């Protein structure tokens, strides 16, 4: 009896998750009347705007990962080594992006960094790009920090540092050549999650008026019928790829993936 209920729950739940995926794939193949074809994909992939916005978002995602690593790894390391009492404070700050909706943060950017402010970042394209990059880094902060901090907890940070120092290594060398390689698995899993979040991000990019993939998808969705389904399939494949690689890495390196 119990087993019947269990199977019922799993099958119904499974249907709920499978149907939209099947529906999207089927819809994306329907562009040519009367037969299935890859026309929608062809149309999307040959669109210059698709290539431009997708590569823009890929570059932004990679830069976000670099910025995230530069901010998070030294901080998490330093807090563990020298300022353990500050850990709750840092942890609280890194969780703030989960509490404050992204739309409010970007609203703050627009108000704080407008053209009449001290730091008029929104005045130029490169300034706005930088602002968006920093916004993405804050979005990725909770995941990145938790991944790296979990990775660090498996190391004896103090002994490693003392050993390196007694061999004459400086701080940059310790962090870059010793700590980073040791938490690489954790960093990678944080990185792939950040990539999955940034690649399709809509709110920040749209409100800062940047030509990113998220706003492009939204625009296409408002104007076309079959291409959006093809885009959804592509986006799902990217998300799936990122998360799959992430799980693989965490299994290889033996670090745990932080749930939200």
């Amino acid at each position: 009896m119990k087993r019947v209920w269990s199977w019922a729950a799993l099958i119904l739940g499974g249907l709920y998750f499978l149907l939209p995926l099947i529906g999207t794939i089927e819809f994306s193949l329907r562009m040519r009347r009367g037969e299935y074809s890859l026309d929608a994909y062809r149309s999307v992939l040959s669109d210059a705007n698709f290539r431009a916005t997708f590569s823009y978002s890929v570059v932004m995602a990679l830069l976000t990962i670099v910025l995230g690593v530069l901010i998070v790894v030294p901080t998490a390391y330093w807090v563990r080594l020298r300022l353990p009492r500050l850990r709750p404070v840092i942890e609280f700050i890194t969780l703030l992006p989960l509490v404050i909706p992204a739309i409010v943060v970007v609203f703050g950017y627009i108000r704080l960094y407008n053209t009449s402010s001290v730091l008029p970042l929104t005045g130029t394209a490169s300034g706005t790009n930088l602002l968006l990059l920093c916004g993405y880094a804050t979005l990725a902060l909770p995941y990145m920090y938790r991944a790296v901090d979990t990775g660090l907890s498996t190391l004896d940070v103090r002994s490693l540092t003392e050993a390196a120092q007694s061999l004459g290594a400086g701080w940059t060398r310790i962090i870059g050549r010793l700590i980073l390689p040791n938490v690489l698995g954790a960093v990678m899993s944080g990185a792939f999650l950040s990539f999955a979040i940034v690649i399709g991000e809509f709110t920040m990019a749209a409100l800062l008026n940047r030509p990113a993939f998220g706003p492009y998808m939204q625009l296409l969705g408002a104007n076309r019928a079959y291409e959006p389904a093809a885009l959804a399939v592509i986006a799902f494949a990217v998300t799936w790829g990122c998360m799959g690689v992430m799980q693989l890495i965490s299994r290889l390196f033996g670090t745990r993936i932080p749930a939200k």
Partner: protein
Amino acid sequence: MRQIGWNWLGILPFFAFALLFLVLPTMNIVIGAFQNPQGQFTFDNLAGLTSPRIVSSFAISIKVSLASALLGCLIGFAMAAAVVMGGVPGWIKAPLMTFSGVASNFAGVPLAFAFIATLGRVGLVTMLLRQWFGINIYALGFNLLSFWGLTLTYLFFQIPLMILIITPALEGLKREWREAAEVLGASTGQYWRMVALPILFPSLLGTFALLFANSFGAVATAYALTGSSLSIVPIMLFAQIRGDVLQDPHLGYAMAFGMIVVTGLANLAYVIMRTRAERWMR
């Protein structure tokens, strides 16, 4: 003294970043919510939130969030319980957890497209129901661009999040507790009602709060799905930032402040409940 100064220097970049791109922008909005256009302190903006249009947007937002959090909790719990203690083969758990990890991050614009392709007017399920069973769900009053449509779509990331969080809690239920209850003559129903659910209650309530906040702040899915036809809070705020539709910038700040208050309270509930839940998990 010099040692302390040097120690602080190490986390200066982090604090500078957090201050510039997280704390100050948020503070700016919060302060703006309590200022009039001349920069003086006022409660007028908060009072302005009671206008019918804004109240109804908060009401529908809270309703969607409550419904998707509640259903997400129930369905997610059922699926997690089925895997952990339902007697189904053990190999199902790993793929379910992997899939949950992916699906809980598959939100935003593509998710809206997926549901339009499935349950939209010419979507796969809509068509199949009509062809196979002669059921026209749109004639029966269903609309994807509505309260239930949005809730149904949000469940796609709510259920997996619930599964991810509640599975460890279910696995933390010790076998001894069940055995002790059975030795004392408890039925399965009594075990659940008097032992398992009270222990799980903080986890359930905490996850509910987290799911609530999760859907309350979601913008992209709703925007791509409904455009501006369903005025939930994030959509209205989006329109306000783009084009000052409320014709009062400070009312916009007050609205954003209201959002922070709601998600803040929900997250606070989550943190409190999680600390209580961890008491039993040692």
